[in-house]
């Protein structure tokens, strides 16, 4: 079935019958797991969990949840950190693009994206925590000669009750994601010419860009921005490392309840998951309203005709912000690398007292096995997602069978619905279906999360592709298949490979789906790293974080290098 679903150049008749089914198949791939998972969460939330002897529905779990004294703070933390991180990440992204797109420096920023994106969130969070903690690298580098401190000060820098460290960590990781999505979108808007026109009308670089390009760009990256918002509000691993703990954000607390030995707390966790879902929906609504407000202000600004500053001051600031975001992630990774080879390393020494390869020797053989599993799952999931995405988009092109028509929310469900809200239910569904935990089941579960990113990543360049090229190709005698294979896909090689790399990296980063659907039997570098993170052994975390980063980095490097290599003699393909 799967082999036949692949569009084969021959078998025109078969393709005609199968292609229209791809969007339907994809909708099923996305909705069945999320729906089954949500049902599996909703039932315990209203008090139905037969395995624990709870059969009668009721509002007990919600009453129990609302009686928890930390609820208000946990909700506030989820909402505030999510909204603040998203707004800041978007602001930094826009600042960088406004000042630097179409400059030579932008090439460097662009090249830095892949390594930044492939640093796993948890690893980046650890790196950041160790950089800025009172006993962290920054203080070590300055102590005791500058600070006079022989001991770390008792400052509440990480895990602060306002969630500032958490926001900082999220911003540092989401800026590269938004930049990547923006660059993909910019290639398809007529940004260069619009910005030039705006500058010719006397606007400063930034002001002109904001007026002429940003509105069009935002329309294209709106959904990735929503994903960032939903993710920032519900992230578990980063929040557990950088976020406050008294109380933690709601998502972390839900996972704690799910992990509590008192099995009855699973009902409260389910109720919490439902509330988390509602909170995400409310925050998205608020953001949406904010968009309208900003748009109104922006139009007033455009009408005012003010030209904005023309100096390079804003540019320097945005570059500093970008450098800070990138520097934090890369320096954090550097610190983890140092920890992976560290012997004892006391405060306030700026470096370990000795270097040793003991940690690598200890974890090396296991790592090779983990990387093979990780790569197999990620490669399969990303490839399947890419085939489905191309199938959906081609069906959209040929038959107008837009996945949008079936509800864009369906596509976003796996990204917008908190993982804690439907994965435990999904695990139950897999079990009920009698699936043996294994690579196939895990890959299928990853596909649910990988597909939306792949589709998002490929969808915009796909739709923005000049359809007149297809008309020309068909007037030259090419059939629909010929247009796809001979013109469209080759021209979209870069976006397709980027989409694959994004999917690969997303798969590499999955923790909860791997753990729950794999029944714990499928170990990847990420499950290993998070398990180690629970123990806080920085040496082991360093080794695994580097391995994880490498696993995600390789496809990005290929996605960048391959089109350059293949199209090295085609100047018209360099911007695509």
């Amino acid at each position, binding site marked *: 079935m799967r082999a036949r679903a692949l569009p084969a150049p021959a078998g025109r008749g078969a393709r005609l019958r199968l292609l229209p089914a791809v969007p339907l198949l994809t909708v099923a791939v996305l909705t069945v797991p999320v729906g089954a998972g949500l049902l599996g969460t909703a039932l315990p939330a209203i008090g139905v969990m037969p395995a624990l002897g709870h059969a009668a529905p009721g509002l007990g779990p919600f009453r129990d949840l609302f009686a928890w004294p930390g609820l208000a703070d946990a909700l506030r933390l989820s909402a505030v950190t999510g909204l603040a991180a998203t707004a800041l990440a978007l602001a930094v992204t826009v600042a960088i693009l406004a000042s630097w797109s179409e400059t030579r420096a932008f090439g460097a920023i662009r090249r830095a994206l892949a390594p930044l994106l492939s640093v796993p969130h948890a690893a980046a969070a650890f790196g950041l925590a160790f950089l800025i903690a009172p006993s962290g690298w920054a203080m070590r580098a300055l102590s005791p000669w500058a600070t006079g401190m022989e001991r770390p000060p008792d400052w509440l820098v990480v895990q602060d009750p306002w969630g500032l460290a958490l926001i900082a960590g999220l911003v540092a990781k989401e800026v590269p994601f938004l930049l990547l999505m923006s660059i993909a979108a910019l290639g398809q808007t007529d940004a260069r010419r619009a910005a030039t026109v705006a500058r010719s009308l006397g606007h400063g670089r930034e002001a002109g860009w904001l007026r002429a390009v940003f509105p069009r760009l935002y329309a294209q990256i709106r959904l990735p921005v929503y994903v960032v918002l939903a993710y920032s509000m519900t992230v578990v691993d980063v929040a557990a490392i950088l976020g406050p703990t008294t109380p933690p954000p709601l998502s972390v607390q839900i996972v704690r309840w799910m992990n509590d030995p008192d099995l009855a707390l699973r009902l409260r966790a389910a109720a919490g998951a439902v509330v988390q879902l509602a909170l995400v929906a409310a925050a998205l609504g608020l953001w949406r309203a904010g968009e309208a407000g900003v748009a109104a202000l922006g139009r007033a600004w455009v009408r005012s005709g003010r030209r904005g500053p023309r100096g390079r001051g804003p540019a320097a600031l945005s570059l500093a912000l970008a450098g800070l975001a990138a520097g934090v992630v890369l320096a954090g990774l550097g610190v983890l690398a140092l920890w992976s080879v560290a012997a004892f390393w006391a405060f306030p020494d700026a470096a370990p007292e000795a270097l040793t390869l003991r940690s690598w020797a200890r974890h090396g053989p296991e790592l090779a096995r983990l990387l093979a599993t990780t790569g197999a799952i990620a490669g399969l999931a990303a490839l399947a997602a890419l085939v489905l995405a191309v199938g959906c988009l081609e069906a959209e092109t040929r038959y107008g069978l837009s996945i949008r028509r079936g509800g864009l929310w369906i596509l976003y469900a796996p990204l917008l619905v908190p993982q804690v809200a439907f994965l435990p239910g999904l695990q139950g569904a897999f079990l009920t279906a009698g699936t043996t935990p294994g690579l196939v089941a895990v890959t299928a579960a990853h596909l649910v999360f990988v597909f939306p990113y792949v589709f998002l990543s490929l969808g915009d360049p796909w739709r923005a592709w000049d359809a007149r090229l*297809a008309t*020309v190709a068909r007037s030259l005698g090419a*059939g629909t298949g010929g247009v796809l294979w001979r013109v469209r896909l080759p021209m979209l090689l870069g976006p397709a490979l980027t989409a694959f790399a994004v999917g690969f990296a997303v798969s590499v980063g999955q923790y909860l789906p791997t753990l729950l659907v794999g029944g714990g039997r499928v170990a990847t570098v990420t499950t290993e790293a998070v398990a180690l993170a629970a123990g806080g052994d920085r040496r082991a975390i360093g080794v695994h974080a580097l391995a994880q980063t490498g696993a995600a980095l390789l496809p990005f490097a290929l996605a960048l290098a391959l089109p350059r290599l293949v199209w090295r003699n085609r100047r018209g393909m360099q911007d695509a």
Partner: protein
Amino acid sequence: MMGADATDRGLRLEGVRIERAGGATLLALDLAVAPGEVVAVMGPSGAGKSTLLAAVMGTLAPPFALRGRVTLDGRDVTAAPPERRGIGILFQDDLLFPHLSVGENLAFGLSRRVRGRAARRAAVEAALAEAGLAGMAGRDPATLSGGERLRAALMRTLLAEPRALLLDEPFSSLDQDRRDRMRRLVFARATARGLPVLMVTHDPADAAAAGGPVVRLGAG
């Protein structure tokens, strides 16, 4: 063509009506373009000029629907997919495929009847020479000038041996001097091959240069 009487030859639009979903009519038209004749369609933006070409090409997409018949040399092509219609098209932009060399672009449309690598290469070289682009087969299209690219696009279209040619504002990207030369080249090649040409334009000079009938759409 068999049994077709001479008046059937060329491109004919019989009772063509383009409707939006819901039934509102965008345009209604009867038109016959004889072989070697250039018919100019003029009208303001939004009058449906490009939509008309899409209908003739067979690439009309929702929310539009086509009623009536399109025939080419007596054959009803209304339901045929674009690649089976034998209609070539040129746009304002050259739309050379950026991932292929100039020669590969031309070979893309070259009829399958031309067999053998050497024969196909020769056909491409000959076409390039005809358009003053001799020796450019191996070039990256992005390294050509605007005029060169348009000429390459024209030859690519002609190599596919169409039986009708559509032009969608084909010269508006060129400066005045090149525009004249390009017009002459396109009309000369099309007339030499006896192709019916349907041209959409908003430039009266285009219509005048074509020297054929002018159809006005919409309010204009």
